């Protein structure tokens, strides 16, 4: 370290000498580049002034005492900048530390999401979930049972970042430990609501949509807890309809009851679940409207479910310059045969 500081002093002396001799822009350019080297070696402002003073004394042995004294004053003035500089360094180190901690947490969070999409003969399922920051407040889950039924859940933890992420693990374990009511969405939400209500802070709550697809009867039963409505697409009439389920968000009231809805799904029909990060995509200063989302889905509907969600995400992200304001989750289920 001492060695490098000595080298820096020599380099600075050289740069100063050359500049005083030639007074060229090239000399100034070298000085500007040199300041980057100083920062790289974490040389603080007061140190450079001390170097400058020594070099001046060496180059001009007859320099006026007052000039050197004035540099002592300058050095003292720069102490504050030096302290601010060192604080900046320590804050930056702290930030890197926090970022790597969050990185680890975000990786752990990813493991809470299902590793693969369940394969049910008659269904084509696609999903994409992208956090706005590192940690996500969106969650989705699949439950496949022995009777060829598949349960799909999408949830949005109100609030973002780390607190929301911590909450997500609770939802996952609560769902994993639920008994065999998998076919009954309303009962499932009531159960979850009790867990959530008892375990989370008053100012946090969770919206959720849960549906169960029976691949023997091709009926889709679903219930919602204050969640952003999704869509149905009915191929027969080539029409989109809102997938809405009335219900209060989880964690608000202890004895919440949920209504159960049911729709018959035909070949070529789509079920679309989404989080409000999709509908609240912002283009300039306006929100995208639901019709536009339908339009986007339509554009890609001929592709596989996974390709549709990925394409819709890409289009919406592009419209926002790839800077998401909210966590984005989109899930599409298509009946194939």
């Amino acid at each position, binding site marked *: 370290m001492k060695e490098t500081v000595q080298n820096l002093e020599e380099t600075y002396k050289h740069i100063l000498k050359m500049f005083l001799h030639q007074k060229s822009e090239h000399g100034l350019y070298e000085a500007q580049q040199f300041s980057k080297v100083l920062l790289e070696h974490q040389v603080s402002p007061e140190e450079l002034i001390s170097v400058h003073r020594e070099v001046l004394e060496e180059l001009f042995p007859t320099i006026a005492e007052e000039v050197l004294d004035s540099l002592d004053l300058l050095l003292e003035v720069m102490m504050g900048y030096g302290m601010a500089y060192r*604080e900046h360094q*320590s804050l930056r180190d702290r930030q890197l530390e926090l970022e790597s901690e969050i990185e680890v947490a975000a990786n752990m969070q990813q493991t809470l999401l299902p590793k693969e999409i369940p394969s049910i003969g008659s269904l084509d399922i696609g999903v994409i979930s992208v956090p706005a920051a590192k940690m996500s407040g969106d969650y989705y889950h699949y439950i496949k049972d022995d009777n060829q039924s598949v349960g799909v859940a999408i949830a949005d933890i109100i609030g973002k970042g780390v607190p929301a992420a911590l909450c997500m693990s609770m939802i996952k374990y609560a769902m994993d430990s639920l008994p065999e009511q998998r076919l009954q969405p309303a009962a499932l939400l009531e159960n979850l609501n009790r867990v959530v209500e008892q375990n989370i802070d008053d100012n946090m709550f969770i919206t959720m949509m849960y549906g169960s697809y029976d691949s023997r009867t091709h009926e889709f039963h679903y219930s919602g807890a204050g969640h952003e409505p999704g869509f149905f697409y009915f191929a027969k009439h080539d029409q989109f309809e809102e997938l809405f389920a009335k219900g209060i968000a989880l964690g608000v009231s202890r004895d919440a009851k949920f209504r159960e809805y049911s729709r018959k799904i035909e070949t070529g029909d789509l079920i679309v679940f989404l989080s409000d990060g999709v509908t609240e995509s912002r283009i300039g200063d306006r929100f995208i409207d639901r019709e536009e989302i339908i339009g986007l889905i339509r554009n890609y509907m001929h592709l596989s479910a996974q390709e549709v969600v990925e394409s819709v995400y890409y289009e919406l992200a592009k419209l926002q310059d790839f800077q998401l304001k909210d966590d984005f989750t989109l899930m599409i289920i298509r009946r194939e045969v």
Partner: protein
Amino acid sequence: MKTQSCVEVKNEWGIVAARQAGRSLSKEIGFGSVDQARITTAISELSRNIYLYAKRGEICLEVVEKPSKIGVKKGLRIIAQDQGPGIPDIRQVMVDGFTTSGGMGAGLPGVKRLMDEFTIDSEAGEGTVIKATKWLR
């Protein structure tokens, strides 16, 4: 060899006197101009804290020594003590960005970075003792 000299701090004159004492002693020990300025700035910040929060207290300076590879290493220790209100939450004041007097990089973490060693003892209602040492390189 342990000489200690103390300066009373109860106004800005005291702060200047403490700075002056620190600068002379650090020069005498053989610190370079940058380290002299750092030691003086640390004294300045510590005595301002005394003046602002405890109203009065003292800054004591001593020459310290410790064995090292090249014989004996010399250093300067600042002891800032007061019987003021004390610091209720020391952890909080040792965090960057927490400063009641304004200004970036200042405060106790700033002082700690100016020096090589730093210890603080404080009890609410009893007062504060801060010891900070800089070693000659």
